[in-house]
């Protein structure tokens, strides 16, 4: 048996080729031990390719400006798949098992963990309406229309009613992965994002139920079904969705409780933070409940409690790691989608594809318009026409639909046709909608996300407005949203937090958010001012150099301009210095006088030295500058100060900085 080059060998966890060992006598210096590492090796190679691809895109600036990352990844997947197909190496398609168990959870967990809870609750009504009624409407409308068309023999393959409804249930679901991938790059405002994304997340409850329901119905056969079965199908909505949420809550509590007691083994805290939500996902899967809702709810809930239980360093590492996992998964998913296109069993039926596409777009638009019309009657913040347009356009389909379609039982004859149509819709979504959404959003002048750093003023005023509104609600005698929020926060602070967090006294009002905001902002300012100082210093040096060598002129000019801007900005260097030292003194004073009871963060060494404890121990400005300069050269911090086109996108950056 000849050996093969392992240039592009793919993940294939059951069918990797084995290489026979050659029998020769004597002691071997070097043996080929492929079988021992094959699976793991393949996985690592795959990840490497995906990551390299991402780097490549960021280098190809002109292309990546108008083509979203997800489409580029699919193209690479396509290319790879074609190469493999030609060389007849064993190809593999995106195994739905791998997808649902390994690739999807990190992305959903990332989404849940970084979800702006407040925005979610303010829009909960619209999100629930969209995810439940919207999905139901889409499923039945698309399925019904396709069924109608099939009666006129317009399609090459036939299917039963239930079979087409299986298809329409999976094709009508908005996909969270695709929404994140595309919307995040265009930085649309939070209100729109939370509505589309919230819908994408929670419609899983509906989609999974419909899909399973129709699949069982199809297998049972329509003759054998009774009304009881239909009723049971309807009930399963609530059970699946709520059950998933309950599991999420249970595991969120588990995480908080365990991290509460990890003070002495601090390094282990992140283990719980990752493992338990994953278990929530698996448990929900095991019980046939909505695993997506489970892990998302878990991530949403546990955030505020674990913040008080782990050190800031650990919290940062956790954030970073979650982002990393989610990004890699997303990359791999899209690449696999491209790959699977080549290797799936296709049946190309143009009529069916076009019909599906058309109905998807049409019914989504109709659904959104009708739902917004009804919702606008009950909401303070109304959906404008532009909002409705973006919402309809944001109905992106993605890998979840693909995962579901390939797991349709093969006994359904129309499966290849469905697979092809699903892939076509996904491609349309990712390519066409992905490419056009940015110029459209700009043309329609949709409000972009606020890209500024949070200010102290806003944290304080927001809290203040909450109290004020809740008070006015009381006077007006209505139990409105603010009363609910205040009651929940009071209950939270009084009862739940002391149980789930360390060092929490029973307080009626939770001030920790404002304090955290204050400390974070002070720290940021300190860093920023320190980096200004180094900029000015090096600027001064460079400008003197420029006088002497005109060849350096071009490279120096930007710095020079920056320097001039600072000099002319009304604040001269001295007042900057005094401001800075003022802040620092204050910070130090406060840290020294802080009473131990209110010190929620564990001081002392953790994984690395906490930045502020370094200051406390040395307490001189020189040291401050030195470590700030070190940070300044750290590319991660610098990227936060620049407009970045790739890597930690601004949204991710804001998540990072989010209190």
């Amino acid at each position, binding site marked *: 048996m000849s050996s093969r080059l392992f240039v592009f060998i793919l993940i294939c966890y059951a069918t990797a080729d084995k290489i026979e060992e050659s029998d020769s006598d004597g002691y071997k210096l070097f043996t080929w031990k492929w079988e021992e590492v094959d699976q793991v090796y393949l996985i690592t190679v795959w990840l490497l390719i995906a990551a390299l691809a991402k780097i490549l895109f960021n280098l190809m600036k002109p292309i990546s400006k108008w083509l979203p990352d997800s489409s580029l990844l699919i193209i690479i997947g396509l290319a790879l798949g074609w190469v493999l197909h030609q060389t007849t190496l064993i190809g593999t398609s995106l195994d739905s098992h791998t997808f649902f168990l390994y690739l999807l959870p990190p992305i959903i967990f990332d989404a849940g963990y970084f979800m702006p809870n407040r925005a979610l609750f303010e829009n909960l009504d619209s999100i629930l309406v969209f995810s439940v009624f919207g999905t139901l409407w889409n499923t039945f409308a698309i399925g019904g229309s396709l069924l109608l068309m099939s009666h006129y023999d317009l399609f090459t393959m036939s299917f039963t009613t239930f079979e087409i409804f299986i298809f329409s249930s999976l094709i009508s679901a908005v996909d969270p992965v695709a929404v994140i991938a595309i919307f995040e790059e265009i930085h649309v405002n939070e209100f729109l994002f939370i509505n589309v994304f919230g819908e994408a997340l929670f419609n899983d409850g509906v989609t999974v139920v419909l899909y399973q329901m129709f699949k069982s119905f199809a297998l049972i056969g329509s003759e054998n079904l009774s009304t009881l079965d239909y009723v049971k199908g309807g009930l399963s909505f609530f059970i699946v969705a709520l059950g998933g949420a309950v599991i999420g809550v249970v595991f969120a509590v588990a995480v908080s409780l365990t991290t509460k007691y990890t003070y002495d083994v601090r390094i282990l805290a992140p283990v719980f933070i990752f493992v338990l939500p994953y278990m929530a996902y698996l448990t929900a899967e095991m019980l046939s409940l909505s695993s997506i809702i489970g892990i998302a709810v878990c991530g949403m809930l546990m955030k505020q409690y674990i913040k008080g239980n782990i050190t800031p360093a650990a919290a940062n590492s956790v954030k970073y790691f979650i982002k990393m996992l989610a990004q890699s998964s997303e990359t791999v998913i899209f690449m696999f989608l491209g790959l699977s296109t080549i290797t799936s069993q296709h049946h190309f039926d143009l009529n069916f594809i076009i019909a599906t596409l058309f109905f998807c777009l049409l019914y989504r638009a109709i659904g959104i318009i009708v739902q917004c019309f009804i919702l606008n009657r*009950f*909401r*303070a*913040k109304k959906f404008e026409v532009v909002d409705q347009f973006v919402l309809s356009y944001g109905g992106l389909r993605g890998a979840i639909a693909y995962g579901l379609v390939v797991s349709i039982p093969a006994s359904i004859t129309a499966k290849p046709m469905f697979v092809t149509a699903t892939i076509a819709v996904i491609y349309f979504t990712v390519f066409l909608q992905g490419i056009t959404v940015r110029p459209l959003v700009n043309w329609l002048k949709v409000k972009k996300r*606020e890209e*500024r750093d949070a*200010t*102290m*003023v*806003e944290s*304080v*005023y*927001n*809290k*203040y*407005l909450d*109290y*004020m*509104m*809740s*008070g*006015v*609600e*009381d*006077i*007006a*005698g*209505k139990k*409105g949203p603010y*009363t609910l929020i*205040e009651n929940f926060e*009071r209950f939270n602070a009084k009862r739940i937090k002391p149980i789930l967090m360390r060092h929490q*006294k029973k*307080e*009626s*009002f939770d*001030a920790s958010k*404002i*304090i955290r905001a*204050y400390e974070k*902002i*002070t720290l940021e300012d300190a860093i920023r001012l320190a980096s200004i100082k180094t900029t000015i210093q090096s600027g001064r040096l460079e400008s003197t150099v420029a006088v002497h060598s005109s060849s350096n002129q071009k490279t120096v000019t930007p710095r020079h301009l920056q320097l001039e801007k600072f000099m002319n900005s009304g604040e001269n260097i001295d007042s900057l210095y005094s401001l800075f030292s003022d802040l620092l003194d*204050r*910070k130090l*004073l*406060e840290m020294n*006088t*802080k*009473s131990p009871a*209110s010190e929620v963060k564990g001081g002392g060494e953790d994984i690395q030295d906490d930045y502020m404890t370094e200051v406390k121990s040395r307490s001189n400005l020189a040291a401050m500058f030195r470590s700030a300069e070190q940070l300044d050269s750290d590319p991660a911090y610098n990227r936060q100060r620049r407009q970045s086109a790739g890597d930690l996108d601004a949204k991710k950056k804001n998540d990072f900085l989010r209190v």
Partner: protein
Amino acid sequence: MGQTTSQIPEHELEHLSIESGLSRGGILKLYSRFISLATHRDKTTNEYFLTKGDFQSIAELKQNPLGDRIIDAFFADAEVLERRKVYFKDFVKVLSHFRPINKNKPHPWNSREAKLRFAFTMYDLNKSGTITKDEFQDILEMMIGANVPKEQVNSIADRTMREADRDGDGYITFQEFCNAMEKTDIEQKMSFRFLT
């Protein structure tokens, strides 16, 4: 405490509706709330009015750290302050600040500026037209003071004042307040959808 037999005379209902921008239904709902809270009646005009005591008897308000400030806001108007009675029209006027903004029918009482001004008067304890650092600190202390050491409250107040006080004169004027809030969606935050 319900004396539901009393009704607003029709012309007054009409007048209030036009003046405040609220619908008649909205005003009637507010009226029944007003009546349920009021314990005093004006001898001469037979109108109900609210005193500070009536406000303070609202149970949920007691737990609100800004409770007293909110009550003061109802008495902010100079006339009302003088007579120390809140009549229904005063009640309506204050609450109409929280009506959601209707872009097609703008109204001075629930405009963005009116809402901001209401928020501002709650900070401005002595009605001087500006917020000083001490006033700000008092509010901050009310909100978070119970659990936080005084120096920290001081620093936070300092920091926030520094951010908001653009011209550095030590006072926050209404204009500076508006600027600080310009990125906040006041129209949504300070609106109740049940007020139509």
